């Protein structure tokens, strides 16, 4: 790795607009394209501080700052356009979290990298609407939170309650939400409001290890731990009334449910297995990367194809997982209000995937090209009229669901034409960590965190209360900064702001 002083490093960075920085070639060795990142003044400070800290002389251990990771990704074979950092970027494994990169499918040297997807394959966010208002829910908020907590298995070691055997799992992996539909867990129209209609067709369960299946089976229909959650939220602000109404959001105070979860141990194991396979493929095909953690394989190699098929199976697992929790959420609400999910109008507004690689067509230098787009901690944000978004959102652009941190707020954005041009139709995914977990545990007291939530009227049910400080808002960047940056840069557009009134966590 090149060792330079902080001031020398800065020579490779150039602020090109109020919200965008350019990373010039040479910042890291062998960059095929330039990098860039989107920040506002506050996020910019965090970003540069991280770089500065890594430039300390004689530092050992430690990790690569996000900005260096963007540049390392820019050095991967077959990358086109730019390696892009979104405003919520932070250092991750190989790729930074909040990094997107696209690779030319027609270039035989192009690669696919499991690090560009993440361990939690098809981690994503789903938003359900209701026709309830805050005044309907406030009096029963605590009971409702408890009921959701009782319905949805959360936290380490919890097991799914949707009956499944090994054969069901094979079918679910192949069929994704079509399986959920066949088994009666979701509504037909739910699929319409999911990326890929809740099913990646190239999924092949035969490419998945027995170990991944064994880890996955007991965990299907569980929320997980860490930053995953289910929240009851109310509409706090509507920025774009027309688009909001297309999503069935009419006024402030309307109640929605947000579910943030992924493919659980199944996806984690698929990613782990692929990384081990790819290490070998890299040696064989002599693929050189700047960082050992950027394990990758040529898209057309056996390892590359096997990974894409297994990743698709994990993506299907995640959709079935979120669908199972959708079912449980609908049951909990119906019981509480003594009615049916239908009468509560509990439709899926949308379901986004923020850890995934997909084949998409984009314009590059005036020509349409078929690309493998990696989005790690980045959400697809397609503009109005894009053929891959559902008919209901053809005129608004694709809804983008941005989950905030515990007790802050979340946003619904819509995709824009400018985002399509600048970032391959991608935007931010959440708040992005600012403090390390260990630091959070040392500096923040969990009782204070819980009290604070209570004071602002948020009911909370959490499986591991002693760990809530790791997820406290102080540990994260401000999601509003992140979303405002995306809006100001034009890569997506603010539509709705949501505020939580009850949080269920692992």
């Amino acid at each position: 790795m090149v060792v330079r002083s902080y001031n020398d490093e800065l020579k490779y960075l150039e602020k090109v607009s109020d919200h965008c920085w350019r990373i010039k070639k040479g910042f890291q060795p062998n960059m095929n394209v330039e990098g860039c990142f989107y920040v506002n003044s506050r996020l910019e400070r965090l970003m540069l501080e991280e770089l500065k800290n890594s430039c300390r002389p004689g530092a050992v251990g430690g990790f690569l700052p996000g900005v260096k990771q963007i540049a390392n990704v820019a050095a991967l074979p077959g990358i086109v356009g730019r390696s892009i950092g979104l405003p919520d970027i932070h250092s991750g494994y190989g790729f930074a979290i909040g990094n997107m990169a696209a690779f030319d499918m027609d270039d035989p040297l192009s690669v696919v990298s499991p690090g560009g997807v993440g361990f939690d394959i098809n981690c994503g966010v789903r938003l359900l609407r209701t026709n309830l208002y805050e005044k309907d829910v406030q009096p029963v908020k605590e009971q409702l939170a408890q009921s959701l907590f009782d319905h949805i298995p959360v936290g380490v070691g919890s097991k799914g309650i949707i009956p499944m055997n090994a054969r069901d799992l094979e079918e679910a992996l192949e069929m994704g939400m079509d399986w959920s539909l066949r088994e009666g867990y979701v509504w037909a129209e739910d699929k319409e409001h999911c990326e890929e209609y809740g099913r990646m067709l190239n999924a092949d369960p035969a490419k998945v290890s027995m170990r991944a299946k064994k880890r996955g089976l007991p965990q299907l229909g569980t929320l997980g731990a860490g930053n995953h959650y289910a929240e009851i939220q109310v509409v706090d602000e509507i920025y774009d009334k027309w688009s909001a109404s297309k999503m069935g959001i009419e006024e402030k105070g309307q109640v929605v449910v947000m579910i943030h979860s992924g493919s659980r141990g199944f996806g984690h194991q698929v990613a782990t297995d692929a990384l081990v396979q790819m290490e070998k493929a890299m040696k064989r095909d002599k693929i050189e990367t700047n960082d050992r953690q950027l394990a990758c394989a040529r898209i057309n190699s056996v390892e590359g194809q096997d990974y894409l098929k297994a990743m698709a199976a994990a993506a299907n697992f995640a959709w079935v997982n979120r669908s199972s929790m959708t079912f449980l959420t609908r049951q909990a609400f119906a019981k509480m209000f003594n009615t049916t999910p239908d009468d509560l109008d509990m439709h899926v507004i949308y379901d986004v995937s923020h850890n995934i690689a997909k084949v998409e067509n984009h314009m590059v230098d005036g020509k349409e090209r078929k690309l493998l787009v990696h989005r790690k901690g980045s959400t697809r944000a397609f503009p109005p009229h894009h053929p891959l978004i559902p008919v209901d959102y053809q005129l608004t652009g694709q809804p983008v669901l941005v989950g905030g941190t515990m007790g802050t707020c979340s946003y619904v954005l819509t995709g824009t034409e400018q985002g399509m041009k600048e970032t391959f139709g991608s935007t931010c995914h959440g708040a992005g960590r600012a403090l390390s977990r260990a630091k959070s545990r040392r500096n923040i007291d969990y009782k204070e965190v819980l009290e604070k939530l209570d004071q602002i009227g948020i009911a909370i049910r959490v499986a591991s209360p002693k760990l809530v400080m790791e997820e406290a808002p102080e540990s994260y960047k401000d999601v509003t900064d992140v979303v405002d940056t995306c809006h100001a840069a034009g890569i997506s557009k603010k539509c709705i702001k949501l505020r939580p009134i009850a949080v269920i966590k692992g």
Partner: protein
Amino acid sequence: MEVEFSKDNFLLPEMKYEYLDHTADVQLHGWGTSLKEAFEQCGVAMFGYMTELEYVSVEQCFEIEAKGDDLEGLLFHFLDELLFLFSAEPYLVCKKLEITKFDMETFEISCRCYGEPFELGKHPQGTEVKAITYSAMQIVQDTTANHYEVFVIIDI
């Protein structure tokens, strides 16, 4: 594979591990007077992040095997086996690990894992470990001072 063991003269090892800073994840740091001990400690450290080990009693023993291409690979696969022991049948939380075979030439490990199946209500829920990573992995061998250390970042 479950194996028999005797609770007579069963001793728990002293704690030689800690958790270090990393932005999104956590770094396990285990040490000991042999590499074997450092590996064992690192493994227990991982379980300590999933639950509180004082609530775990030693009821069962399972034997696992791991193999790598090099020392880092061996550590990676050793921890991956332990994670699997927890993530699927028998859902074991280990309080003590005892490496019975540590082959530095073929990079193979056999290990006896003592603990009990994870049970909601009995064991507090900690954080879920998604995966083991090679990220900033370090294995320090100071043979003169008889001091061995390992550093592993786990994805959570």
